């Protein structure tokens, strides 16, 4: 009664983070479900990477506000992951025989789902985070992992030496094998930062997960416990150098920047590139209509919008309405946002369904002054209502009254 086919490599996507640094944006939804780039959610990038790399079995580990994420992922059809054998599965904690356990660290989350993994008898397990924006062909990494006969391969990206102390740094030998891992070192010895993308041989991983689960002092975390344990045991661990665009969007600043990166003519994250296409759940709405008198410049606007005002250097998600005389600059609008006429928005992220009343002002709207220095990002949580002629100061973060 075997239900599943054997798979060479399956992916386990850690989507459980509370994402508290994104503040009001993750008040009701898990971080991976946060909108990005006009028509995507953050998790679309990782899921699409899997599909584009030929990985058709993905376990999504989640326990924090999974409702909208679950709904968004649904049966996996948007990513072609609605498979009879394999496909995408949401893995929430469940009742064991005696204990009722929530996920502890990242390693524990995977360990609790050992049975899920076992049924596919995978040779390798790819461990991913659900909060990074990047396009990557994991198949190439897997090929290198296999060529090296590695127990574990960790994807790394070159960061400026000045920033290296913010990351987990891999110190490697000439052949790419890792001899040391330092979490946020004060004096980094290399600039190879871990991207949070790991490929493990499943038999090896399983052994370390079991061992780790018995250690009561462990945080049950890959970075803090599993990787160091494997290194100290002399496992064959390699770094895989990734050269493309990669961004952790765990903070408001970085989320805003990653959105703006899409507008810089030659973003390293080429969405249009069909080689590694990014899939997203599709919502059925008509094309966008641009009224007479509208002014749009350097903007990305997706479908279902109606634009009468001025949009500059901004990302507009689906079904937004921008009234006559309204001005949106340097901002990111999540789906269903309405900006009434003559309202002004600058350096802001407006959550899903935010409504900005007529003539209201969000952020530094003395536009000429704002151009001169980098502005703080203003954030309004989903369904926030700003009354007509109201104002929100630059850098504020407000949530809707419930």
């Amino acid at each position, binding site marked *: 009664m075997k239900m599943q086919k054997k798979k060479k490599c399956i992916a386990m996507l850690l989507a459980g983070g509370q994402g508290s640094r994104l503040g009001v944006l993750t008040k009701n939804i898990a971080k991976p479900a946060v909108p990005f780039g006009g028509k995507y959610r953050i998790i679309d990038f990782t899921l699409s990477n899997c599909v584009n790399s030929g990985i058709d079995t993905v376990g999504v580990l989640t326990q924090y506000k999974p409702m909208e994420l679950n709904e968004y992922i649904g049966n996996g059809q948007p990513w072609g992951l609605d498979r009879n054998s394999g496909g995408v599965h949401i893995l929430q904690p469940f009742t064991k025989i005696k204990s009722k356990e929530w996920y502890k660290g990242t390693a524990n989350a995977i360990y609790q789902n050992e049975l899920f993994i076992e049924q596919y008898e995978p040779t390798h397990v790819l461990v991913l985070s659900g909060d990074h924006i990047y396009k990557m062909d994991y198949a190439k990494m897997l090929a290198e992992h296999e060529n090296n006969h590695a127990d574990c391969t960790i994807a790394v990206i070159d960061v400026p030496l000045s920033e290296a102390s913010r990351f987990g740094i891999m110190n490697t030998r000439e052949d790419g094998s890792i001899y040391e891992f330092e979490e946020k070192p004060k004096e980094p010895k290399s600039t190879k930062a871990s991207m949070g993308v790991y490929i493990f041989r499943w038999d090896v991983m399983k052994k370390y997960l079991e061992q780790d689960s018995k250690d009561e002092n462990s945080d049950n975390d890959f970075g803090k416990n599993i990787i160091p344990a494997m290194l100290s045991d002399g496992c064959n661990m390699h770094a895989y150098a990734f050269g493309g665009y990669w961004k952790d969007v765990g903070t408001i600043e970085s989320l805003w920047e990653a959105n703006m990166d899409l507008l810089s003519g030659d973003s390293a994250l080429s969405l249009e590139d069909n080689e590694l*296409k*990014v899939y*997203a759940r*599709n919502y059925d709405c008509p094309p966008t209509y641009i009224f007479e*008198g*509208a002014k749009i410049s350097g903007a990305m*606007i997706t*479908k279902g919008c109606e634009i009468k005002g001025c949009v500059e250097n901004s990302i507009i998600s689906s079904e937004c309405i921008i009234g006559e005389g309204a001005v949106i600059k340097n901002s990111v609008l999540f789906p269903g946002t309405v900006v009434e006429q003559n309202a002004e928005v600058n350096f802001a992220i407006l959550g899903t369904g935010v409504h900005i009343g007529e003539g209201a002002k969000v952020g530094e709207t003395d536009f000429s002054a704002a151009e001169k220095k980098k502005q703080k990002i203003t954030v309004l949580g989903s369904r926030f209502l700003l009354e007509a002629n109201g104002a929100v100061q630059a850098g504020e973060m407000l949530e809707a009254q419930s």
Partner: protein
Amino acid sequence: MELMGIIFSNIYDEHLGEVTKQRTLASLPFGGRYRLIDFVLSNMVNSEITNVGVITKSNYQSLMDHLGKGKEWDLDRKIDGLFILPPFGTGQKTVYRDKIEALWGAKRYLERSNEEYVLMSDSNIICSIDYTEVLKQHILAKADITMVTRKEEIKDKSNIKGIAVKTNTRRRVTDVLVNYNRPGIEQCGMGMYLLKRKLLLELLEEANSYNLLDFDRDIIQAKHKKLKIMVWEHKGTALRIDSTQSYFEANMALLDKEVRDAVFRGEGFVYTKVRDEVPTYYGRKSEVENCLIADGCRIEGRAENCVLFRGVTVAEGAAVKNSILMQDTHVGKDVSLDYIITDKEVEITDGRMLMGAPQHQIIINKGKIV
């Protein structure tokens, strides 16, 4: 589970000329991201119809590509779902000539279905209709056939085989005019009929034995006294596409908010094939006004009064006016277009200037480089 759907994908192809040379009328691109069939198919899905047969005749590869496995319409079902009915269905040796023969070819499919009622429709009318309302009236009125109609102004140049009806005050059809051409406002058929599946099979059996072909003439007109044929009048917006001119005008009509709201925000969503396009990018120097713009475009130049389909690019210095640019049309630098319809994957090279007229748009065929 009461109502099933039948869609004719090829009727009227010959009236549309070049744009239906390589495709069925049903798969004609429309409104920036749709094909004509999306509207009737979405109406059916939104009316809880889960068993739909699409009758094909020729050129249906593009239709099959568009409909795929029916996923976008939630019709990729284990039980029922979407069925493409190829020609030569029920032991036929030649392709069908008219609607009755087309239905005859789908006889086996009709017989195997379980629904009590059938809603048949052409695919050339853009509107939003809740067929459950039509069914309610049909049952309440104890009708044999209910036809969906709309008060329309008949122009004398109308080149379609139309059907117009007169009714009594209780909406029962009392007279049927086929190929009616006299100018004036008439209750015109919208090519949509609702009747019992068993009755349809009986009517087909009978028509077949007399070698009758034309559903409107040989059934609706010939039998309107014997059968209780009722009218369900659609009072909302509807765009009928029966010529290149009306195709152009229907697209342009979408630039009007009222029409858009009637068509797109009606009884439910309009579903179409997902292309996974990126959002449209508007360049620093772009100027766009009064345009309907799909995802996946890249606009660096000027566009005014246009419908731009998915994946269209307009280069810097180009100016496009009063035009319909289908999927993946590329407009080069400093191009000037006015009253142009480009089919899919057309390329207009740098500096070209093409001008049609309000009553005579220039059509550029699929894949052409001009």
